[in-house]
């Protein structure tokens, strides 16, 4: 049993400040009142609405909801009320529309552009706000500081006459967070935090920061750096793909910088992050602008799933600790750098909701904001080690089952932050090195498997890194939130309300809450989701059975090398060129090619077009007609035997389905002669010849690689009235990304690492088409 910090002060439960107490049943106190709420579509707001609607039958509400895309506020609220927890109250009211008409008025609007509020409101309950811990700095100030100010201005307007004189005194209830205490240590009283920060100046600076960083992101140095990063990955695919990626990277960079700016500013002033910093400033706004209102500020700590209401384990979305719990269950967290004795101040959602509704029913003194902590740390503390033990217990009893078996829960030794950070650094380097090594590896199934496992490791590291930087502070915090006022309010609950509205944080057992309520509540839906996803995955998404199409409306484009045929340009060059040379010259040719191979490979890494051109230069002096004859007589069997049978079958299925089959390749045209029976159109490189039909070593046009393929497909489909969205494309390398991206059903065939990653992130099917020639390469005749 952990000793509660509150006990060390030796004062028992007496409080120095007595908050306004309740002198009747809450339902009676709130009867006939109108509560205007923000944030009802959020986690806490939704339950508050539910609580008020079900427990305070004579109270009406109005909700401020913003429109989301084409969905109006009305529709959003109607959707919310159709949720299962509202079923009873909706039935009692006689339908969603009826309920909305009588008790839930909808005000469409957003912070900080707040619309007019109803003039008959009694309580304004503001619990909207960012839930993210790391919003960009401008966004954090916009919603929290500017938004609160605007809301209070409108509240004043709604309670004043035309001349601006206050005609009624409303009760403004502000939901903040306990962590507005920032990086302070020890006991935090239920009072305003002491600081002298000018929130107006901070807000101006934060909003200016956005402009500044946006401008910096467009500077030549920054854009060059981003372009180089994008080129390292996508150079082969072409300029457009690269530029698309560069712009994506710029937007990401801007966001990252804004987040960093926020975090650093917050830390420079003593807060852990911009979220708590902006929230703290918002509290100050409330204190400043509510001089002639009744005002209360409720500061919940870490709000997690409900203990009892609407049902045990009720939760919407993922909250702070949940990803870590899940990652632990999946075996992805071998260790976590938190202080084992840090108190993690978790409070069930229904306790927070009950407290807020109770505060709504109080009448605080005008001009003196009341503060309430909704937290468990003072009297029912749960340490990090305690959480770990509960989580471990739970997963020992309900192991996380994957395809191959269950994951054994890890044992943590709490080594502190440093070893874990060192591990992260080393592992990060390792993954980078591994990726570099793989980029030189021979393409194949094994390489792909290695790349996949590297990607997985990278994902885990990113996850760990992200949560360490996000929550590291919280997991080492030594704050304890005094909740005497909250307790006093709880103690003043009417006998009848104790059961329904109780919020004494010392009244429950952590073992029950963690192991029987909370952890199952967050893991069960994820397990269900994952098994559903597994089922979905087994059905391929873009590689599907072909349907008969109207001839000439659908096309199927195939890449040649590596997709349909297991060869490369160098090999086919040797096939085509060697037979016409004398034995001595053959040796010379092979040796010359081998000598130049590093140059060619370097060119290939840089730009496939350059590579193809340099190989094709070697055709100089070859007779085109002789080359074609040689292909027909000698090479056709070789080429056909190197084809993948699955590829041939698929091409033929496409033809049978009435699709136009197109071969798109950088290979020279004579080598495609054996495929003429399979494809309707063959797009290949044309060797330029002189008047005697001798190849000059140049091409008559640029080779068809990268983005020129997608352009070709687009133009072709326009000319022939083909529906690209219903069309298919098959290719094997990263260069072909634009070609695959141009159609509706792209399939990566035995892809290289770059394409594999792209295909995975876009949900394209990946298939293996091995060539199955019964003959070894060397003895083919």
């Amino acid at each position, binding site marked *: 049993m952990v000793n509660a910090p509150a006990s060390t002060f030796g004062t028992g439960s007496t409080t120095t400040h007595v908050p306004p107490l309740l002198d009747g049943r809450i339902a009676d106190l709130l009867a006939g009142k109108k509560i205007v709420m923000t944030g009802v579509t959020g986690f806490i707001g939704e339950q508050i609405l539910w609580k008020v609607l079900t427990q305070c039958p004579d109270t009406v509400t109005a909700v401020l909801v913003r429109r989301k895309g084409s969905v109006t506020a009305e529709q959003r609220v109607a959707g919310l009320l159709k949720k299962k927890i509202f079923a009873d109250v909706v039935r009692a009211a006689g339908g969603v529309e009826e309920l909305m008409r009588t008790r839930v008025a909808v005000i469409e609007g957003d912070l900080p552009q707040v619309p007019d509020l109803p003039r008959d409101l009694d309580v304004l309950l503001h619990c909207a706000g960012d839930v993210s811990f790391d919003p960009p700095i401008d966004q954090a100030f916009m919603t929290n500081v500017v938004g609160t100010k605007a809301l209070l201005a409108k509240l004043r307007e709604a309670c004043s006459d035309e001349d601006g004189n206050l005609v009624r005194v409303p009760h403004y209830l502000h939901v903040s967070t306990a962590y507005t205490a920032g990086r302070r240590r020890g006991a935090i009283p239920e009072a305003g935090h002491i600081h002298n920060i000018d929130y107006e100046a901070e807000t101006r600076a934060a909003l200016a920061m956005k402009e500044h960083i946006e401008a910096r992101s467009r500077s030549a140095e920054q854009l060059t750096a981003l372009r180089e990063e994008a080129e390292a990955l996508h150079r082969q695919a072409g300029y457009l793909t690269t530029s698309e990626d560069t712009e994506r990277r710029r937007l990401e960079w801007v966001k990252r910088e804004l987040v960093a700016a926020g975090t650093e500013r917050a830390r420079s002033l003593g807060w852990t992050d911009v979220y708590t910093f902006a929230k703290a400033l918002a509290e100050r706004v409330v204190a400043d602008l509510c001089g002639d209102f009744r005002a209360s500020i409720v500061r919940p700590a870490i709000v997690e799933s409900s203990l009892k209401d609407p049902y045990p384990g009720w939760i919407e979305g993922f909250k702070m600790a949940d990803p870590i719990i899940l990652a632990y269950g999946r075996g992805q967290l071998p260790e976590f750098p938190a202080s084992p004795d840090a108190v993690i101040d978790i409070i069930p959602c229904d306790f927070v909701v009950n407290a807020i509704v109770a505060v709504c029913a109080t009448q605080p003194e005008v001009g003196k904001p009341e503060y309430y902590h909704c937290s468990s740390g003072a009297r029912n503390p749960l340490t990090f080690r305690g959480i770990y033990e509960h989580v471990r217990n739970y997963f020992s009893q309900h192991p996380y089952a994957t395809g191959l078996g269950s994951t054994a829960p890890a044992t943590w030794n709490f080594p502190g932050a440093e070893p874990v950070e060192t591990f992260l650094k080393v592992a990060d380097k390792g993954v980078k090195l591994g990726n570099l090594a793989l980029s030189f590896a021979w393409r194949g199934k094994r390489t792909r498997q290695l790349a996949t496992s590297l990607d997985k490791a990278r994902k885990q590291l990113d996850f760990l890194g992200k949560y360490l930087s996000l929550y590291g502070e919280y997991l080492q915090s030594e704050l304890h939130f005094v909740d005497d006022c909250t307790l006093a309010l709880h103690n003043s609950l009417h006998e009848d309300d104790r059961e329904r509205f109780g919020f004494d944080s010392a009244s429950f057992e952590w073992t029950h809450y963690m192991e029987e309520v909370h952890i199952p509540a967050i893991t069960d839906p994820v397990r269900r989701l994952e098994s559903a996803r597994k089922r979905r995955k087994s059905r391929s998404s873009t590689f599907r059975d072909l349907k008969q199409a109207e001839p000439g409306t659908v096309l199927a484009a195939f890449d040649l090398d590596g997709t349909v045929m297991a060869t490369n340009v160098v090999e086919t060059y040797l096939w085509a060129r060697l037979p016409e040379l004398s034995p001595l010259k053959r040796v010379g040719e092979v040796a010359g090619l081998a000598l130049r191979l590093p140059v060619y490979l370097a060119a290939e890494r840089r730009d496939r077009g350059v590579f193809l051109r340099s190989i094709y230069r070697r055709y100089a002096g070859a007779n085109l007609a002789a080359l074609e004859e040689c292909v*027909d007589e000698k090479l*056709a*069997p070789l080429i*056909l*035997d*190197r*084809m*993948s*049978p699955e590829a*041939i*079958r698929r091409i*033929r299925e496409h033809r049978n389905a009435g699709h136009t089959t197109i071969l798109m390749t950088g290979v020279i045209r004579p080598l495609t002669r*054996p495929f003429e*029976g*399979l494809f309707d159109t063959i797009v290949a490189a044309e060797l330029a010849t002189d008047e005697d039909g001798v190849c000059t070593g140049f091409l008559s046009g640029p080779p068809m690689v990268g983005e020129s393929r997608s352009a070709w497909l687009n133009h072709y489909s326009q000319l022939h009235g083909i529906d690209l969205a219903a069309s298919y494309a098959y290719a094997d390398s990263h260069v072909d990304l634009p070609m695959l991206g141009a159609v509706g059903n792209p399939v990566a065939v035995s892809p290289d690492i770059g394409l594999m990653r792209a295909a995975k992130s876009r949900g394209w099917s990946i298939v293996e088409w091995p060539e*199955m*020639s*019964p*003959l*070894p*390469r*060397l*003895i083919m*005749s």
Partner: protein
Amino acid sequence: MPRPGFVLEVDDKTPHLLTMSGAQLRLERFGIGTQVVYTADAEESSDPVGLIEAAVGAPTGGAPLAEQLSPGMKLTLVIIDQDAPLPRPHFDPRRALTERVLEIAARRGVDDVELVVANGLKQRWSTQQVSRALGDRVATSFLPDSLISSHDVTSDDLVSIGEVQGFPVLLNRRVAQSDVVVVIGVRADASEHDPLAVGLTDLATLDRLLGFDPAPGFAEGVSDLIRGAVEPFALFAVLGQPLLAWSLRFLATREWEWKLTDRLALAGSRQIIAALPRQGAQLVNGNPRADYAVIDVVGGGYASSLSDSLGVWQAANSVEVNGSADVLVTSVWGPAVDAVDSIGSPLDVAHHALVRRAGSHLAKPLAREGGALIAFHPLRNRFSNRRQSAAADFFAKVLTETTDAGEIAARFQARAMDDEWYLDLYRKNFADHPLRVYQLWYETARAAEQFSEIIWVGGDRRCAALLGHRSATTYADALEIASGTVGMHPSITMLRGPGLVLGDVR
């Protein structure tokens, strides 16, 4: 004459016996009482000149070939292209026969000479194949002027020679319009197909001849029609058993007669195959060539030569076997199935085991009706894209739907025969005609009906299931599986060695 084949009854002193499975060789213990059928001994070939001279100079029932030729005649040599001989011969006897006939023709002043390969539904011959079978001399003198051609069953240029049962029969134009036709072939099995009927006619006739349900009397009708139309002179070389190069010579030798070199060769080849990756093993050990002794050359009228050669082959290769067994065991050795691939595609392998090997018998079958067949082969799902595209699709698409020959004939055959890609491969890339794989399957399915169980030892489970058969990991397991139908103590006959034996079951 070589030592004739015989039956060994396994007793407790019998050593482990050689089995072959694709490219793998291994020694296996067989149960006491198993009848092991050994082929006649393989011998080195001797110069067949004397035999050829005799056949050409004193043919049965007719004038010598030289007397049938005179200047100004149109002479066509028809080269029969049946399944035999496999493994590929070092020296193809057809070459000696062809050269001799060409020599006589030249001496008699015949200028208009062409060679036609009676390949039927099999692939047309590439230049390499022509040189390999007929020798460089023939190839270099005739190929450049396109005087050697393969028969194209889909050609428009075929000549009608009459009707059988109301259906027109078309024949190769050059053959039909020649003054003298000399048929040159080898005899290395007991096949009773008429090689001209299956080699030189049109697609529709071939479909009726070897289709799912051939009309009775149709084959005889076609044969009579052709013989009436062209009256060929025939030369058949009857071959003995394959004698492999020294490294594989032990294949045809009886185990108890193995010398140290034979044992070393077996151990060596096993190690090489095991140590190398698949393609490397094929380089070293794949596609061995064999030497075939020419036992006799039969010359004369086509019909009589055909039956005479069959008689000679039967006399040389039949082995008296005591009763139809409950279980027939056979190895399937890749090089005896496919001239290019040392393992063989599952369809060819099944045909080889069921039709060629199990079907090689006189009146009484080697295994009783309702018995079991146990064959050794890995049944690897591999087909050549170029030569076996139709077979690969048949295996992947048709057999997954049904193995019933009648249903396949009704539902799938027509579409495959008209498939442009298959025909393109047949015409340009030396692939078999798509109809061939269907006809092979009909034969295989017909032969399979005789057995209640067909079990592949070491066979790929999926492939075996596709064929409608079963697979077992070991020979003992296969017997265990078979025990359900043939009991715990079945009588077993095993066909040993790479060569083909003719079972004279008493």
